[in-house]
């Protein structure tokens, strides 16, 4: 009797143990890519360095490939008239899409955080003395209204899909964090661009009230950089091919 009791208890223990073991194996295998907590800091550091190197290599390769493609396009457009037309369309689309560096007349707008002191720290919101994403968006909107053809914020080209959003103490543009002072470059008619910002009651007036320093400089040969990242459309597909212009 005792023997049988012992047997069943041991069997029960075996059942529990094998159950736990298999369950644990399953969990760990399922999450093996995310196995971060069990990895040591030095392993993670190594992995991060490797990934950084890999990223740099891939970036270099990408710019080389892009140069090659441009070469081919140039060569093709010189020898063939119809390709020349298509290449022109492509260039203009590239400017609009933010894929090519643009030069031309325009303005450089620099915004610096306020150096004024908050006279009533309890009553007046401290945040009003800091530049916000809404301020940047206001400036960009006014520039667009004045006919800006290419805009960049701290050397991040503003695309149709670019976000300009507060991220803690900095602003995130194209998934890159940029901090004050904010430099907006816009290519267009320098006079129109400047006046769109300085008129009474406009963007500059509002910002100057809080002491945010705005500096506008006209330039006849401004360069707006191209968008550096990867473009990947997961949801949008072209509905119908139409002439670009």
């Amino acid at each position, binding site marked *: 009797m005792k023997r049988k009791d012992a*047997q069943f208890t041991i069997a029960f223990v075996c059942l529990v143990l*094998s159950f736990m073991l298999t369950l644990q194996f399953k969990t760990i295998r*399922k999450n093996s890519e995310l196995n971060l907590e069990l990895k040591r800091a030095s392993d993670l550091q190594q992995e991060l360095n490797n990934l950084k190197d890999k990223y740099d290599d891939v970036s270099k390769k990408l710019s080389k490939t892009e140069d090659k493609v441009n070469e081919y396009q140039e060569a093709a457009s010189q020898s063939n008239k119809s390709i020349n037309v298509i290449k022109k369309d492509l260039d203009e689309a590239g400017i609009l899409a933010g894929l090519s560096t643009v030069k031309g007349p325009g303005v450089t707008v620099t915004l610096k955080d306020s150096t004024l002191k908050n006279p009533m720290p309890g009553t007046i919101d401290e945040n009003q003395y800091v530049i916000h994403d809404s301020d940047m968006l206001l400036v960009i909107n006014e520039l667009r209204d004045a006919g800006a053809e290419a805009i960049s914020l701290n050397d991040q080209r503003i695309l149709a899909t670019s976000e300009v959003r507060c991220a803690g103490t900095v602003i995130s543009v194209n998934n890159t964090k940029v901090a004050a002072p904010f430099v907006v470059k816009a290519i267009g008619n320098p006079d129109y661009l400047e006046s769109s910002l300085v008129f009474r009651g406009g963007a500059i007036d509002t910002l100057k009230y809080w002491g945010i320093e705005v500096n506008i400089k006209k330039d006849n040969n401004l360069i707006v950089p191209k968008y550096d990242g990867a473009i990947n459309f997961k949801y949008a597909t072209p509905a119908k091919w139409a002439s670009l212009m």
Partner: protein
Amino acid sequence: MIVSIIAIGIGIIAAIYMPAIPFIYSKYTAVAIMASLDSVFGGISSNIQGKFNMGIFLSGFFTNALLAAALTLLGERLGADMFIAIIFVFANRIFINFAIIRRYILSKFITKV
């Protein structure tokens, strides 16, 4: 003996059909398993020495597992991560008990030359 093997089979099959444990808790189940393994080896080694006690074995099996998980949790909350230390302790005991089992098997089945 056969019952144990059937039980092991049932355990494995049951675990295959159960959903996986959330990954955050996997640390605690890992220590619990180490504790359970240790009490199994402890049970076998005490059986060899004739000192086997079912009550101690069963109670030790479950309470050690619970205590190990609780200690890891406590260590995490205290800011003194004890995960590796607890694993070390159980691994150490497994080795000691396994050495006893090994000596017994060798002495029983292999005659000295």
